[in-house]
């Protein structure tokens, strides 16, 4: 067992509350199993902090299998750590070497206020969802299967967009703190499907306008795609840009004539 253990040094951002000043604190994490995930490693560090009667590090996690989007963490300057297409919970300590120095920071943006230590409020992303991330369907008895035909290509693309777990890594990785990748995934996921057509232009306008209330502007670096644990494509940003300006040009009093 012991040959699978590594000793690492952590530089962790500690902040007591939203209005407090933050600082880095250094922790020696000894005898960490390489089979543990990054979050499990933090759990072990926290157990030891509690044993020493110190305040444990606050961080967010839920499903720990990469599908909920709760975990965050900027690890060595990269959102969700160095591996592509992985959330922090799926990042294992075997990625690191014995003696590594790891810097851990929260996801940062003006609209991501820090709650405590490594936990940030991503409520601004909920605001974007509230603005148009829904469709209107009649409730009642279940509709017949295949009542609404969906082209295979559209279904595939919509599924790729729907894979977004809303973790905020795109905002954290972006030098401009832009939420373009998240918003475009949420817009296009519905705009590509027949069920989303009735609110299509309203949706893209409202969601983008809300996004711009809180987040920066896209300069097409592509950092968001590299950081995204679900590898959402940059193509969705282009599709969203196209739909947004189309929505501005369209006169919706001529609805149905496009």
């Amino acid at each position: 067992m012991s040959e699978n253990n590594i000793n690492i040094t952590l530089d962790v951002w500690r902040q007591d509350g939203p209005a407090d000043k933050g600082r880095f604190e250094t922790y020696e994490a000894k005898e960490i199993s390489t089979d543990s995930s990054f979050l499990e490693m933090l759990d072990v560090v926290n157990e030891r902090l509690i044993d020493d009667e110190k305040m444990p590090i606050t961080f967010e996690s839920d499903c720990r299998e990469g599908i909920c989007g709760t975990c965050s963490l900027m690890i060595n300057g990269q959102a969700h750590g160095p591996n592509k297409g992985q959330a922090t919970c799926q990042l294992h300590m075997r990625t690191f070497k014995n003696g590594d120095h790891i810097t851990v920071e929260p996801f940062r943006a003006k609209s991501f206020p820090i709650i405590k230590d490594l936990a940030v409020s991503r409520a601004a992303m909920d605001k974007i969802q509230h603005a148009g991330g829904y469709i209107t369907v009649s409730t009642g008895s279940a509709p017949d299967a295949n009542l609404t035909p969906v082209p295979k290509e559209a279904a595939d693309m919509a599924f790729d967009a729907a894979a977004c777990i809303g973790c905020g890594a795109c905002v954290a990785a972006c030098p401009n703190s832009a939420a373009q990748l998240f918003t475009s995934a949420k817009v296009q996921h519905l705009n590509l499907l027949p069920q989303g057509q009735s609110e299509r232009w309203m949706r893209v306008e409202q969601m983008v306008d809300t996004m711009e209330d809180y987040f920066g502007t896209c300069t097409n670096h592509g950092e968001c795609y590299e950081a995204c644990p679900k590898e959402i494509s940059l193509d969705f940003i282009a599709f969203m840009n196209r739909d947004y300006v189309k929505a501005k040009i369209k006169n919706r009093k001529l609805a149905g004539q496009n």
Partner: protein
Amino acid sequence: MAQTIPDLRNPQPIRNRKKPLPFPFNVWQSAIGRKWIMALTGVGLLGFVIAHMIGNFHVLEGPAKFHEYAEVLRDLGGGIIPRMWLLWILRLGLIAMFGLHIAAAYTTKEISRKASDGANFMDGQKSYPGGRDYVAANYASRTMRWTGPIILLYLIFHLADLTWGLLPHTNYVKGDPYNNLSTSLGNLPVAIIYIAANIALALHIFHGTWSLFQSLGLNNPKYNNARKGLAAGLAGVILLGNLSFPILTQVGVIDNDKNECAQFTEQAENTECFEELLSHGGE
């Protein structure tokens, strides 16, 4: 202890949303619309850069042909539109495109600045205090905000140098572009300024060309893979083309000694001299 604790459920917006204006002004009201305008004006400016470079290759045909090219520009639309009119319409269009391009770039940069620096960062720091590891952002994309102003300063220098003739290092003669170009670029420091500025321009064009497809939403998996190649090719061709002028002047291929009309310093005189030369060349 009157510290304000941020409302974690309702973060403070970074802007006050204004009432929407009628089309097309509502496009300018959003950052995505401004990026769209930046991309469209970028295409226009790119067209100018390419046309300017191709036109400048007339300098290799000698002083008389280069003079003729300058005259053709003034006579654009010849016979139908009065002399200088079309040229001025094009110039005004260029100035408008520059203005919109710069205004869009500056205002979107300010939005991003507001979105990324704030109370949750360490005092006085705008980015991750622990450092950030860029994966995709390349040198060209990260320096757009520097190459842009460099190009603007260079543009003013270039106009003062070869259009207005305000700088002392050239023996500026109105109506004799060959003389002006060769005496200006014959100075080593000036040639170095031109070379450095054109490298900045090529970097700007490299990221801009790729980026404009995204900003305009021109995205089609059929040609997406070609976009980076197109950007690199375009930037490379423009870099080589524009660098050839200071380099060829420095090595003596473009030299004012080859200018038969160099002794004339009045526009009317050298125009007459060049037209005389051209009429002999035509025989």
